[in-house]
């Protein structure tokens, strides 16, 4: 790619990001997602406080980590849906084709969407920091450096979630099918995780041969889900924070970056191959 083409690509990416961002900020979705995430976190914190009130004791090194973890899950669900419909919506409306009449390439379009959702996450993180800092001041639950570490990690998790959504969106031509696909995949992940956990209670020798086969198949599927599902990176990351060791924490960040790059590259390739029309 020549310098001229690169500069055109970067400029169009910036303009697409600006438009998308303004459109999202004028919508209600981001505020709704923040409200729900803070509501859920508040509910968990209220239960903590209730427990402290009843038992006069609450032992936790990082009391706000769990509410933050749940808050990130809620926000991630919002981001995965938003990113999953972002390309298919433009494809369905035909606006993708009009954009591609001009100086817009598949990569600039896709990166425009990616950066929009990342900026949205940064905005949400800003509000979240204010919320948890406020909660800490009001309740004396510790706003620790570990919490900031969790925030840092959540940025990379958001990146995984967004690239996963964009990948699904690049594969689909309609908003409805994007939503069905994303919900279907997440439910499938949950079901496999749930069944795998149930089977863990049974040693293989007590299971009949067909069930042993199912157990093995589930364990293979679970292994792959650990790398495919963006939410696995969240749970692994939170575990690494609890462990307090920097190596798993940094490794998790590195895996998240690789995951993002791979999925975004695949999305660009699919967008080029599938074209702009349904």
């Amino acid at each position, binding site marked *: 790619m020549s310098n001229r083409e690169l500069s055109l690509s970067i400029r169009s990416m910036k303009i697409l990001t600006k*438009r998308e961002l303004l459109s999202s900020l004028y919508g209600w979705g981001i505020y709704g997602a923040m409200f729900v995430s803070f509501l859920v976190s508040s509910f968990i914190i209220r239960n903590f406080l209730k427990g402290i009130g009843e038992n006069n004791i609450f032992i936790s090194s990082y009391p706000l980590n769990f509410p933050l973890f749940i808050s990130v899950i809620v926000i991630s669900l919002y981001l995965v849906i938003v990113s999953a419909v972002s390309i298919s919506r433009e494809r369905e*409306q035909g606006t993708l084709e009009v954009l591609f009449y001009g100086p817009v390439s598949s990569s600039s379009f896709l990166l425009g969407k990616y950066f929009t959702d990342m900026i949205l996450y940064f905005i949400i993180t800003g509000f979240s920091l204010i919320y948890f800092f406020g909660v800490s001041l009001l309740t004396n639950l510790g706003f620790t450096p570990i919490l900031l570490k969790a925030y840092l990690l959540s940025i990379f998790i958001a990146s995984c979630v967004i690239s996963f959504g964009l990948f699904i969106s690049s594969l689909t031509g309609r908003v409805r099918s994007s939503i069905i696909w994303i919900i279907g995949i997440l439910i499938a992940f949950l079901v496999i995780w749930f069944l795998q956990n149930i089977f863990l209670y049974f040693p293989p020798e007590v299971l009949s041969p067909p069930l042993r086969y199912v157990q093995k198949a589930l364990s293979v599927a679970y292994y792959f889900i650990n790398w495919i599902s963006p939410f696995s990176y969240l749970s692994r990351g939170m575990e690494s924070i609890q462990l307090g060791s920097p190596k798993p924490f940094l490794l998790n960040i590195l895996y998240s970056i690789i995951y993002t790059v791979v999925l975004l590259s695949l999305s660009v390739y699919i967008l080029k191959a599938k074209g702009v029309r349904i």
Partner: protein
Amino acid sequence: MIHTKNLTKEYDGFRAVDNLNLKVEKGQIYGFLGPNGAGKTTTILMLLGILKPTEGEIYIMGESLSKNPLDIKRRIGVVSEKQYLYKDMTAWEYLNFFADLYGVKNKEKRIDELLSAVNLIDVKDRKLGAFSRGMQQKLGFTRALLHDPDLLLLDEPVSGLDPTGIKQIRDLIEKENKKGRTVFISSHLLSEVEKLCSKVAIINKGKLLAEDSMDNLRRKLTDFVQIEVELTEVSKDILDTLRAFDFIKEIHQEKNVLTLKVTTDKDHRADISKAIAQKGGVVLGIKTLGMSLEEAFITITQKNISLLAAS
């Protein structure tokens, strides 16, 4: 301006476009015609870099589209049959967004200027969701002209417009062409194409069958053409002189109007006028009653006649 070399697009073994060699010169209004499924849209999508050709090369403004797609597309204005709009935006916001995308300078002035030209200035703050089909089409035209493109690529540009709207767009195309812009039009409205285009290409089943000026197409398709001459007075001398010409096969007279059936080997109007003047006649009007573009289109596409070998 546009040059395609053996442009081919295959879908699962089916050749939608087959070795297409188009040549559009700078400043031309070029009509691109063909029946449904002929490969017009596929060709246009390849010219826009949206579809990748299976074989062949596209050169636009002398540059290879595969090498500099973004820089070339920045200099093209496109109007498609259907306008795909961001319905939550107003007309002004929509144009402002595209002005940013194309890097338009003095964008506010340019947007207002173009909206005035298509009579949409009064609705510039209206949401696009409330725009009629005709208004959407005009807005699409405005978007295409926003960045002052060197080449206008129009796919059914007057589709869905009422006669006034069609005239407005036709006038706009002519005005833009006079400014030096090359215009490439694909349309089913052959009468519009005939009025506007200096050159037409006809494709069928993915293959180019003809590419020429309207006059040359007529000449190639028929052996004779009718020329109608209106005179102040028709004398026997004039009739005898005209009958003496080899290229005039028949003469029909109705009062002071002569209808001559002449061969199509060349344009004979000057010879006829001169001969009449030499015999003291005064020519009030002379016109060729040739084949319409519609007749030419039907003849070429139904019989799948290739006129390329003769050109």
